[in-house]
């Protein structure tokens, strides 16, 4: 038993964190919020340069051949920076589904950043990252397709997190499209489930990063904000609220790391563990978001504060890649708890 990351894994995350500090300050997130994509494009190319986009792509296809466990800390860093680009969708989910697929020749395009993928696999038909993606990974539950943007009929919709702008697919189901066969990626239920599991895990990691960033922003704020002649961070009510927020993050993070390990090992409990990670990371980020806003008071209740960018990304990711309700039902099934329900007993 050893629950710790290797030096290589830690060093990789540190390197990614430094790049994001440099290339993804709040102003970059805000520029996407304001409808300007150029800084995001620059960030994307930089992420390609450092190899992150191709991290999961096999070495034979020009990638690094790493695993989700190797990059889970990098994904936390990407959450900390609230990256306004489809990192999870492209570098994790598309990379996993492309390998060994009829479209595997597109893997080098993942590595060099040419492929920018949006994903709608949850039945909502909602595609994130409008204005940025050039391919869409869409599915109807039985099969998934990677479709070029010009052949993907969408309409813009207004998103809560405008730094992750949304569009809605029109004209599903996909297999009805005349060109669908050309774009088939997989119709293997297990491969599709594993790719979705990767996306859920990666999103859980981003939620941890978002939570950490909101917590550190808030700690910084309450130390310097003075009321009644003292820093408000000296008031026990705020200290305890922040201690509870910290506790939520500290207790959620090991679940995410353990889930990454289980996912990569493909253990029998991996699905359950990834569900647990997403639930608790989402809850922790939600708790931190509320506490952060409350501690910022009126100063935080405005779009002029950077905090709002992190709040809205938190809400967006809580609702994406697995809803708490369905994930909790998955866990109940895995534990055999749902069969205790009165419905089951009466049979």
């Amino acid at each position, binding site marked *: 038993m*050893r*629950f*710790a990351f290797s030096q290589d894994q830690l060093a990789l995350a540190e390197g990614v964190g430094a790049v994001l500090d440099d290339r993804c300050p709040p102003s970059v997130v805000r520029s996407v919020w304001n409808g300007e994509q150029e800084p995001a494009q620059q960030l994307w190319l930089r992420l390609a340069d450092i190899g992150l986009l191709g991290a999961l792509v096999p070495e034979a296809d020009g990638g690094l051949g790493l695993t989700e466990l190797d990059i889970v800390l990098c994904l936390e860093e990407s959450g900390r920076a609230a990256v306004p680009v489809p990192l999870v969708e492209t570098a994790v989910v598309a990379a996993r589904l492309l390998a060994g697929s009829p479209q595997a020749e597109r893997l080098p395009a993942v590595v060099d950043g040419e492929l920018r993928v949006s994903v709608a696999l949850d039945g909502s038909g909602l595609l994130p990252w409008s204005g940025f993606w050039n391919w869409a990974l869409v599915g109807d539950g039985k099969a998934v397709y990677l479709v070029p943007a010009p052949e993907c009929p969408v309409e813009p919709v207004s998103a809560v997190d405008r730094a992750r702008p949304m569009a809605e697919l029109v004209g599903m189901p996909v297999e009805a499209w005349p060109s669908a066969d050309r774009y088939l990626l997989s119709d293997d239920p297990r491969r599709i489930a594993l790719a979705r599991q990767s996306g859920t895990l990666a999103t859980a990691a981003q939620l941890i990063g978002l939570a950490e960033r909101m917590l550190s922003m808030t700690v910084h704020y309450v130390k310097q904000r003075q009321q009644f002649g003292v820093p408000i*961070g000296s008031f026990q009510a705020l*200290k305890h609220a922040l201690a509870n927020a910290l506790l939520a993050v500290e207790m959620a993070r*090991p679940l995410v790391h353990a889930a990454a390990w289980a996912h990569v090992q493909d253990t029998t409990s991996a699905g359950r563990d990834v569900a647990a990670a997403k639930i*608790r990371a989402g809850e922790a980020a939600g708790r931190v978001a509320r506490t952060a806003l409350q501690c910022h008071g009126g100063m935080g209740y405005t779009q002029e504060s950077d905090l709002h960018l992190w709040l809205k990304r938190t809400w967006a990711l809580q609702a994406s890649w697995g809803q708490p309700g369905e994930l909790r039902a998955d866990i109940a099934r895995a534990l055999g708890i749902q069969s205790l329900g*009165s419905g089951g007993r009466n049979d």
Partner: protein
Amino acid sequence: MDLTYSAREEQFRQEARTWLQVNVPAQPLPSGDTRSGFAEHLHWERHLFQAGWSVVSWPREYGGRDADLWQWLIFEEEYYRAGAPQRVTQNGIFLLAPTLFQFGTEEQRDRILPRMAAADDLWCQAWSEPGAGSDLAGLISRATRDDAAGGWLLNGQKTWSTRGAFCTHAFGLFRSAAPADSERQRHRGLTYFMVPLDAPGVTVRGFSRLDGDEGFADLFFSDVFVPDRDVLGAVHDGWRVAMATTGSERGLTLRSPGRFRASFERLCDLARSRPGGVTERLADRLVSSWLDVEAYARYTEQTVTRIVDGVELGAQSSLNKLHWSELDISLHELALELLGPQAVLDGPWTKGYQFSLSGPIYAGTNEIQRDIAAERLLGLPRSR
């Protein structure tokens, strides 16, 4: 990262499991926090000791098995899984012993530890006083130097001493030098003593806890002589020595994840036996409980890895304590709901619920723990 146990560790688990299967009493013992129940638990403790399972993490020379932290976690998991009796000796073996290993002299270790492991000497705490609970450094029980006799005279009152009415010895802090004027200096001038409760001048008065058991005691000291050899650590340095113990108490040693895993399994058994099954809402609360237990188990595995790597736990142990104390209550609250009308009756869950409510109070209240987490982990300003 490798979240599996090695073959050697699994073999250790098998050995523990086999022994426990054969030896754990089929009928649960009466509460060890009553006089008669305590006596029955002592039989069990001595049985554990004779088989070498009473202090698995201690060195062999003192009656242990040299188990590392991972093996200790495995043992705890098996112990609670088997439904084995509560450890009435725990305050000695989990609180005093780690302090002796860290600060004791060889003479003290040789004299005290083997008798503790064998449950010949039974140790209770003498920390809190009626006027010094959360504010432990405000304690006023005195230790007065007696040079001629080569020791100290203790005077004062200690309280909330768990199982103090049934124990033979106590360990705790006494003020050996006047507190300095400065607020930051008041932790100095305290000394850590170990004292037999049959020493002349000691009076013990048991009193009931919330659940009615005589689990608490007041300890009154009136010119009780303690020789120098029973001072643990340096004179006037008791605060530092004691903090090592309280760190141990609210950290890993008292609350292994195995306890909560076992509680969760029993909760599922309770749900299965419930007439009419459980509602969707109760099933969902079971999922929440499982998430809490799983989170704590993973957090503990991460923490143990850090300790094995030589990282000091420090203020992080406050987070540990916050989580398990709240977890213990929520598991019992769910049990009460599953019990339905039966929850008006005395039983293991209703009694356990009352005990769980002490979790956020003892070993430093959760309010103190949140202060520690906010100040030392988040770096917020001190406000006391």
